[in-house]
C-alpha cells in the first residue's frame, strides 16, 4: 500500500541528491508542482530523465538541479526552444549539462524494458542516424532466428519516478485517464515512485480509458490539486497555453528567469 504524504515530505524522502529522476507526463498530467518542490529543496546533481523535457525541466535545469539529461525531445511544445536548456548546453549555465539523447521510440522502449525487469529492449530504430555516434547506449543486436540486425537500448530504471494523476483512493491506488503517455511504465521501472493527485477519494469509480496503478506498486501519493499546472488534468483543468507562451519570455534571460523562480517557486509554499 502506498503511503499518503505531503508533497514536501514525499520529495524529501524519495528524491535524493545524485538520483536518477524521471518526471513523466506527455503534455497532459505533467508533475509541475513536484518539480517545483525539488527546486525548493535544492536537490543537486540529478540525472533527469524524460521523453519530452519541456518547461518543467527547463525550470529544474535553470535552477541548477541537474547534472545530466536523458531525453528524446527538448522543446517548449507549440512555442519554440527551451532557453534554460540551451543555455546549459551551449554555455554550461548555471552548471554544465551532460546529454544522453534518444528517440521517442527508444526512450519508450527503455521504460518498457525497465518495467519488465529486462536489461534491454529491441526495436527498429536509430538506424542510419547520428544518434548512435554520441551514446554507447544504442547498440545493434541480431535476431537469433532470422539473423536480421536490430537495435538494442538498455532498460531505464530511475531511482524515483514522479507522475501526476487525477485521483487516488486512501490505499494509494492511483487512477489516471486521458492521455496517459508512458507513466505506467515509468512508475513500474522505478525503484521508488511518487504520485501527486488532484483528488483523494473513497472509491475509484471506473472511467473509460483509465490506467490504474495498484497502491502496492506505488511508494507514496501526495494530494496536490492543480499540481500539473500549467499543463492540465483532464476532467479537472485545462492547459494554460498562455503560460507556455509567457515562458519563452521569462526564460530567455537569466535574470528574469531567476526572479521568476525566486518569486513563484522558492518563496511559494508547496501546494500540499
Amino acid at each position, binding site marked *: 500500500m502506498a503511503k499518503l504524504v505531503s508533497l514536501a515530505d514525499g520529495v524529501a524522502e524519495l528524491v535524493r541528491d545524485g538520483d536518477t529522476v524521471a518526471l513523466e507526463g506527455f503534455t497532459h498530467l505533467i508533475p509541475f508542482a513536484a518539480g517545483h518542490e525539488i527546486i525548493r529543496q535544492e536537490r543537486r546533481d540529478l540525472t533527469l530523465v524524460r521523453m519530452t523535457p519541456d518547461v518543467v525541466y527547463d525550470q529544474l535545469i535553470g535552477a541548477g538541479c541537474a547534472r545530466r539529461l536523458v531525453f528524446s525531445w527538448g522543446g517548449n511544445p507549440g512555442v519554440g*526552444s527551451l532557453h534554460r536548456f540551451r543555455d546549459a548546453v*551551449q554555455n554550461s549555465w548555471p552548471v554544465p549539462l551532460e546529454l544522453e539523447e534518444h528517440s521517442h521510440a527508444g526512450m*519508450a522502449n527503455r521504460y518498457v524494458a525497465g518495467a519488465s525487469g529486462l536489461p534491454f529492449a529491441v526495436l527498429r*530504430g536509430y538506424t542510419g542516424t547520428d*544518434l548512435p555516434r554520441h551514446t554507447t547506449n544504442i547498440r545493434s543486436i541480431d535476431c537469433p532466428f532470422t539473423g536480421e540486425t536490430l537495435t538494442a537500448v538498455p532498460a531505464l530504471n530511475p531511482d524515483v519516478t514522479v507522475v501526476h494523476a487525477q485521483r487516488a483512493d486512501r490505499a494509494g491506488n492511483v487512477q489516471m485517464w486521458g492521455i496517459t503517455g*508512458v507513466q505506467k*511504465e515509468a512508475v513500474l521501472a522505478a525503484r521508488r515512485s511518487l504520485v501527486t493527485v488532484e483528488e483523494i477519494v473513497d472509491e475509484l469509480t471506473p472511467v473509460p480509458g483509465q490506467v490504474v496503478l495498484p497502491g502496492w506498486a506505488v511508494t507514496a501519493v501526495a494530494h496536490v490539486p492543480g499540481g500539473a499546472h500549467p499543463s492540465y488534468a483532464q476532467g479537472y483543468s485545462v492547459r494554460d497555453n498562455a503560460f507556455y507562451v509567457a515562458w519563452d519570455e521569462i526564460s530567455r534571460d537569466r535574470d528574469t528567469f531567476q526572479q521568476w523562480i525566486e518569486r513563484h517557486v522558492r518563496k511559494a509554499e508547496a501546494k500540499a
Partner: protein
Amino acid sequence: MSQYTADEMMTVAAARQLRDGTACFVGIGLPSTAANLARATHAPELVLIYESGCLGAKPDRLPLSIGDGVLADTADAVIPVPEVFNYWLQPGRIDVGFLGAAQLDRYGNINTTVIGGDYTDPKVRLPGAGGAPEIAASCGEVVVIVRQSRRTFTERVDFVTSVGYGAGPGDRARLGLRGGGPRTVITDLGILEADPDSCELTLTRLHPGVTVERAREATGWPLAVAQDLSTVEPPTAEELAVLRALEATMRAAA
C-alpha cells in the same frame, strides 16, 4: 481569387498530399493544420495519429499541442505511448508521416538536433529527435514541410537526426529501413519530389508567382529541376475558408 500567404499555400499544398482513408502520423504545427484541413475538405476518412497516443483523432478545432485534450476526447482509441511506436508505427501500419526540419539535404536527410560547432558544444541546440527517426524509417512515405532557405536547405546536414535516402539510391534498403522515405517536400516556394532513380529531391512544382531562380537561391546545393516543372493550383476559396476557420479555432483556444 482570394489573396493568400505563402504559409497558407504551403499548408494547402501539404493537405492535398493526403489521400482519403489513409493513416497519417501528425506532429503539431503545420502538419497538424494540414492534416486537419485535409480531413475537413477532400479526405473525411483520413485517420490522424498523434504520438501522444491518440489514434483516429477527430478534433473540431486545431489542437494546441500533440497532447491536447480535444485529441483524446475525439480519438477512436487512446493508447500508451510505447504502443504508438511498437504496435502502430514500427510494423508499417501508418501510410504517411509528416516531418519538419531545421536542416535538410538533397537526399531528404533531416537535422533537428544541433547546428554548428560540434555535438557536445554546438552553436545552436535544437529540440532533438522526438518521434522523427522512426517516423522517417517506418511510415509508408514521408512528407516534409519546411520553409525553403539556404540556411535550411544545406549541402550537408550537421547531424542526421532522421534518415531520408542516406547517400543515395539503395541506402535505405542497405540500412533495413522499411518505409518509403521522403517522397515529397512541401515548401513556401513549391514542391520537391524525390527522383525515382537518383533519389535526389527535385523541384517539380512552383507555387504561383515563384520563379525557379528564387527556388535555386533558397537552396544550398545545385537544385535539380524537373523538365515538366508545373505550377501549383492556388488555394481554392473553400480551402482558404476552411483553413482560416481552423486557425481561428486555435487562436480562440489559446
